[in-house]
């Protein structure tokens, strides 16, 4: 029972959450108790959109696997962490800019995803839902452990010398802006892939109706393998952008994972636009909650919204549209 590990993780999450606003541009989030001026509000708005975009990117792979295979991938956050450390190590060892190494992280995670699918998910894809949940949680524990053993649990930072610039009196942190741009490109690319390619059509068909897809000759296990690989690759992309604006630890994935669940359910399972809408909602709650509420109270709000959506509209805000 390694409770030291658990506790240091909890404290770390707390400090990471507290660090977000300062990393977002040096604002002290707990200060403004009086009614904020329009400039401050605009500033928060920018932070919320930036953070929301990143949550959307994190949720993308999760919602895809969920939508197509009906599997909750608990290992999603851990896959992100693998990508973070892979990117950081590769960048440090080769001296190449991490931006150029992002495709490498995506490729690595695709292969890892396919491997995980073949070893653990494929044999039990038709078993009760909780079996897949337990197995992916097992993968989470193993991956996090490996990263922790290799790199230790202390936070590490990739020094990029990224600053922030001012637009009309509003700070825009560069790291997060690049992350957002990458997120939008990823969304567009995945969208095009799903809409315009034969493989994409096969994936959408499988998401719509697994049995029907089988009958019209789609190789469903192959689609599953590709979907899991692409989902993991998207986790890799999300993980690869995190070091651009945040220091990383092996347990950072858990925090992202839990909120990504919320985003996925909020937006509607398998819905890509929903992932970004859900991401924005969570981004707004987090940034404004950090600004106007004490401590990590905003996280309580996030869970309340989550439970409310689960109860009232389990298909999500943009649910029903399972067209990718």
């Amino acid at each position: 029972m390694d409770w030291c590990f658990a506790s240091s993780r909890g404290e770390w999450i707390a400090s990471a959450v507290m660090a977000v606003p300062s990393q977002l541009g040096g604002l002290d989030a707990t200060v403004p108790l009086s009614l904020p001026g329009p400039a401050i509000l605009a500033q928060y708005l920018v932070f919320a959109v930036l953070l929301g975009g990143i949550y959307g990117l994190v949720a993308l792979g999760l919602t895809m696997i969920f939508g197509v295979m009906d599997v909750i991938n608990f290992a999603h956050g851990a896959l992100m962490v693998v990508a973070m450390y892979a990117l950081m190590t590769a960048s440090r060892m080769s001296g190449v800019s991490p931006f150029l190494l992002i495709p490498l992280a995506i490729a690595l995670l695709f292969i890892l995803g396919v491997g995980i699918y073949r070893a653990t998910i494929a044999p039990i894809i038709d078993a009760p839902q909780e079996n897949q949940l337990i197995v992916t949680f097992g993968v989470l524990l193993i991956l996090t452990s490996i990263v922790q053993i290799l790199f230790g649990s202390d936070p590490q930072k990739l020094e990029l010398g990224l600053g922030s610039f001012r637009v009309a009196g509003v700070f825009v942190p560069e790291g997060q802006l690049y992350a957002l741009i990458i997120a939008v490109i990823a969304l567009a690319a995945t969208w095009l892939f799903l809409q315009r390619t034969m493989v994409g059509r096969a994936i959408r068909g499988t998401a719509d109706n697994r049995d029907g897809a089988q009958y019209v000759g789609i190789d469903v296990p192959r689609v599953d393998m590709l979907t899991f690989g692409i989902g993991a690759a998207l986790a890799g992309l999300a993980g690869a952008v995190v070091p651009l604006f945040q220091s990383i630890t092996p347990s950072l994935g858990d925090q992202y994972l839990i909120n990504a669940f919320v985003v996925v359910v909020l937006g509607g399972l398998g819905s890509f636009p929903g992932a970004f809408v859900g991401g924005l909602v969570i981004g707004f709650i987090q940034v404004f909650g950090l600004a106007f509420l004490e401590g990590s109270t905003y996280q309580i709000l996030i869970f309340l919204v989550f439970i409310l959506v689960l109860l009232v509209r389990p298909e999500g805000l943009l649910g029903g549209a399972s067209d990718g």
Partner: protein
Amino acid sequence: MGDPLRSAVERYARFRTQWYGLPTLLVVVFSFLAVLPMLRGVSLLGVSPLGWLSLNSIILTLVWATAAQAWNIMSGYTGQFSFGHAAFFGIGAYATILLTADFGLSPWVGMLIGSLLAAGYGLLIGVLTFRYGLEGHYFGLATLAFAELLRYLFNNLAVLGGASGFFKPLPREYASGPGLAAFQFATDLPYYYVILGFLALVSVVSLVINRSQLGYYLFAIRERETAASAVGIPTFRYKLLGISVSAFFTAWPGAFWAMYFNTIRPDTVFDLLVNVEILLPAIVGGVGTVLGPILGSLIAIPASEFVRQSFEIPGVNNAVYGIILIAIVLYSPRGVVSWPSRLVELLRTRTALLSDDVR
């Protein structure tokens, strides 16, 4: 050559189907557990095979066995897979400490109130989720959200100790001194027998439910809820009963946790990993069985302790949990308790093949 083995295994299979089979096995297991602390000191030919097991680690084994046994009453029997039992565990821990430290109540009273509060929270979760027909993934995620909600609530409310949590009060602050009445002891051994008593009680409750009409109702809900409701079982009410009984008893190991360790914090009792530690023994041992959670805990937790001691790398025991989880779900989804019957099947098919050859 296989004959003595086969007849022994067959005899065991027959014994298991008798009404007294399971109770007898439980008595055997609990007798073993009762002498386990002493067995650690026994040495055979100069080596003590269980010497590496610390008392602390077998106490934790029983803590998670008790929690898994309680989890099983709901998730194993009714099939509503909960991923958020840390909520009930933490409520039990906090209620016990808070009522003892702030109101000077006996920890046993605190534990009882904590169990009732946990049952109430379970009822709330049940009413909300079952009424809206949440199932499978959605139910699992909802229970996780309810547990995480409590973690952040306790982290942010100063009244409830905030992120730094609570220190356990000294026994003389609310009782005459250490002892059973104070739920605090000078040594670890009495703690072991207290948690063994908890496990025995929850196991008996689980066995009684398993054998009663209530149990059959719950199993019917697990197998096919619409069919159960079609033959007249009020499924909503029985699912609520399942979750509140389960929550009630999950608070017990939580209360024990609070009185055994010196401090509790939201990030230790409501942690994501607590949810896993609670369900892991039941999965390893066999979901929906009385013996499963106990056997599963006896395998998984000492195994992770053994690896932790052998490698002395922080975090490695979590990897062991991960490997055990994956291996069990992939290769033996019915858990360790199904191994004897699988052996019987294996031997039967082998003898059938052999006799075919002879002919």
